[in-house]
């Protein structure tokens, strides 16, 4: 987070009524964050096709301000859409590290939740949370495109509870 957002709550909260300002700031910041979630256009396996169906005409997740970006530098949301293999794990970690903060991860489908159908395979990571911190899990193999839209709504709810305040 930027220097202003880091320091402002400290200074503001020391004034009387400052926490009110912080809460209002929270709302504005969270609202702008949740309304322009830009995911990385990145797919791993089967779920990526359902994810593409979300970009497509029927579901069209542009309605939520979700607009796929081709590079991690411009993205703040990554869908792990499919089986994460051990060969790919370090690459996904690197993509995640290249993304600007605040960044969110949605784990899509059984494979990335726990390994799914490949739970006893020698080359599959058993759940993407071994590599990345996950915000929302979607069950399904693959989940319907509507479920992906729901996960974005859930993530937006979660973002609205965030605060820049240092008082917990």
């Amino acid at each position, binding site marked *: 987070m930027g220097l202003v957002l880091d320091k402002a709550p400290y200074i503001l909260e020391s004034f009387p009524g400052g926490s009110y300002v912080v809460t209002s700031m929270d709302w504005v910041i969270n609202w702008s964050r949740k309304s322009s979630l830009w995911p990385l256009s990145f797919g791993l396996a089967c779920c990526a096709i359902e994810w593409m169906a979300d970009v497509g*005409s*029927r*579901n*069209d997740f542009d*309605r939520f301000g979700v607009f796929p970006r081709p590079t991690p530098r411009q993205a703040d949301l990554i869908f792990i859409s499919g089986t994460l293999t051990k060969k790919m794990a370090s690459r996904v970690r690197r993509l995640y590290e290249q993304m600007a903060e605040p960044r969110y991860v949605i784990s899509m489908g*059984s494979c990335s*939740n*726990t*390994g*799914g*159908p490949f*739970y006893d395979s020698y080359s599959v990571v058993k*759940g993407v*949370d071994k590599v990345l911190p*996950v*915000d*929302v*899990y*979607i*069950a*399904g*193999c693959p*989940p*319907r495109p*509507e*479920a992906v*839209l*729901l*996960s974005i*709504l*859930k993530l937006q709810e*979660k973002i609205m509870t965030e605060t820049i305040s240092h008082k917990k």
Partner: protein
Amino acid sequence: MTKIFKYTWAILKGMGITLKYFFIKPVTVQYPKEKIKISPRWRGTLKQLKNEKGEEACDGCRICEKICPVNCISMEVYKDEKKNRRFTSSYTVNFGRCMFCGLCVEACPKKCLVHTTDFEFCTYERESLILTKDKILR
């Protein structure tokens, strides 16, 4: 010069097709407000049925547990001597691992395990993907 004309014409023709769709009904479904009709055969989360007496119909034959390709169903069975049949004391399905293949439902001899059309299953924690008997028996 003819080339420029050719290219422009091709683009205009494509634009014409796109413009046509401006006047027809949009295909986009406004998801949270309206939902498309999902087929009753949709393989969503699992549900256990009750029998006519209101108790669970499952008699703990363990076939679904055995046939599951990913071992996501686990159950514990006890025998009720009074009613002379078996009951499950716990029935857990790990939907984080389930591949929704429908083999368990197909194999169920009492036809008491069915799919629901529920697909909206998102959680914040991985543990919440595991459903216990109180959620499955409905």
